[in-house]
């Protein structure tokens, strides 16, 4: 196995405005484990995922990663996060955007080349401007970023949104390969997908 990281969420309290999403929440995710966070719209799934990706501040708690018997606070370079709206600069072309992403990414090890990740997700027009892409193409481009750099923890917020059947299968294969490598996957999805039974389910509404 490539990765042997364990993610620990300890005493997490998460509040958005007046709404308490989680209180004193503990979770351990071992290497090769997958989690599906579910719950109705607005229950705080995205907030939770953004918090694990260190994009949102948590009110209380700790995010720890243990690797080779060494426990450290979770750092950004261990996480690949894909949000539910693709963070894509519309004025750049596909190739320009991925090159820019590669150049600004700090502290991560290269995984696939831009050409390879584009071909995996079957994007054949690297010179096309991002603003002219369809929602599905944007999502595929966003997912290409998963493959550019190595990170043991993948956090995917609605990754199957707007994807066609073929792209959905490609993503499922990539997730499976990542789990086989000892990676961790935490995702939310309102859609059903293959091998969903392998995912440990967490319902936010029941916890809160």
């Amino acid at each position, binding site marked *: 196995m490539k990765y042997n990281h364990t993610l620990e969420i300890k005493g997490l309290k998460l509040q958005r405005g007046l709404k308490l999403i989680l209180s004193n929440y503990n979770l351990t995710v071992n290497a090769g484990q997958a989690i599906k966070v579910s719950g109705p719209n607005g229950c705080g799934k995205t907030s939770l995922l953004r918090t694990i990706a*260190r*994009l949102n501040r948590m009110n209380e708690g700790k995010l720890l990663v243990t690797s080779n018997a060494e426990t450290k606070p979770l750092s950004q370079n261990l996480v690949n996060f894909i949000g539910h709206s693709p*963070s894509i*600069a519309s*004025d750049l072309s596909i190739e320009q955007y991925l090159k*820019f*992403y590669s150049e600004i*990414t700090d502290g991560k090890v290269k995984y696939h080349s831009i050409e390879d990740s584009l071909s995996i997700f079957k994007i054949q027009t690297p010179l096309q401007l991002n603003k002219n892409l369809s929602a599905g193409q944007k999502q595929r481009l966003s997912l290409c970023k998963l493959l550019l750099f190595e990170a043991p923890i993948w956090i995917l917020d609605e990754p199957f949104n707007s994807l066609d059947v073929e792209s959905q299968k490609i993503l499922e294969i990539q997730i499976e390969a990542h789990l086989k490598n000892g990676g961790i996957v935490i995702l939310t999805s309102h859609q059903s997908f293959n091998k969903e039974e392998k995912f440990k389910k967490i319902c936010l509404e029941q916890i809160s």
Partner: protein
Amino acid sequence: MKLFFTLCSFELTRYYASLTDILNSVAFFALIIIISAVSAGPTFTNNDYLVIGSIWTASVLSCVLTLDLIFNKDFREGTADLFILCSVSLEILSLAKAFSYWLTNCLSIITVASFTFLLMGFKFEFILNFLVCISLVTLTMSLIGVALSALTANSRNGTLLLTILVFPMMIPPVIFGTSSSLNAYNGLDVSNEVLFLIGFFMLLLSTLPWASAAAIKTRIH
């Protein structure tokens, strides 16, 4: 340094794509000069003080007009998240944004303003002094604009808030900038004003990138 140039190149590509916004500022500058000339009548071309004042006003207002563009797209398209996820130094990002904004929006206004002075028959030494002062004032304004734009971008009434916040901070450099131009026109010493502008710019250069970085973090979290 490589990151700074990568971010500058990214910003310049974006500004090139929204060239109409820059042309809009230039058109706004031209409108202020034309309206000043029309409302003052024939005295406008005879009164050099009026011309200097109008061109300074037009230059500063035109540069302020597009300040909200600095972070708007980042928060709308989600690239602000990308900067955090990629562990980009937000201080370098702020400097790159300020420099790119100055290089595109402000420099185009400065060029047009200098040509306007040239057409009005002002001396070369005066125009040179104007170029130095307006460059320092607009560089200062770009630094202030990045911090305030990070705080107000994509929020309700953000543009109005940005304009209200930026003007009090712009008054000292504008006072010294126009005073320097008037001194240069009258053949007086301008070193005090220029030194103040350099000092003010250096002070903000050494403090505002950190404030901007904190503003970006606050908005994202």
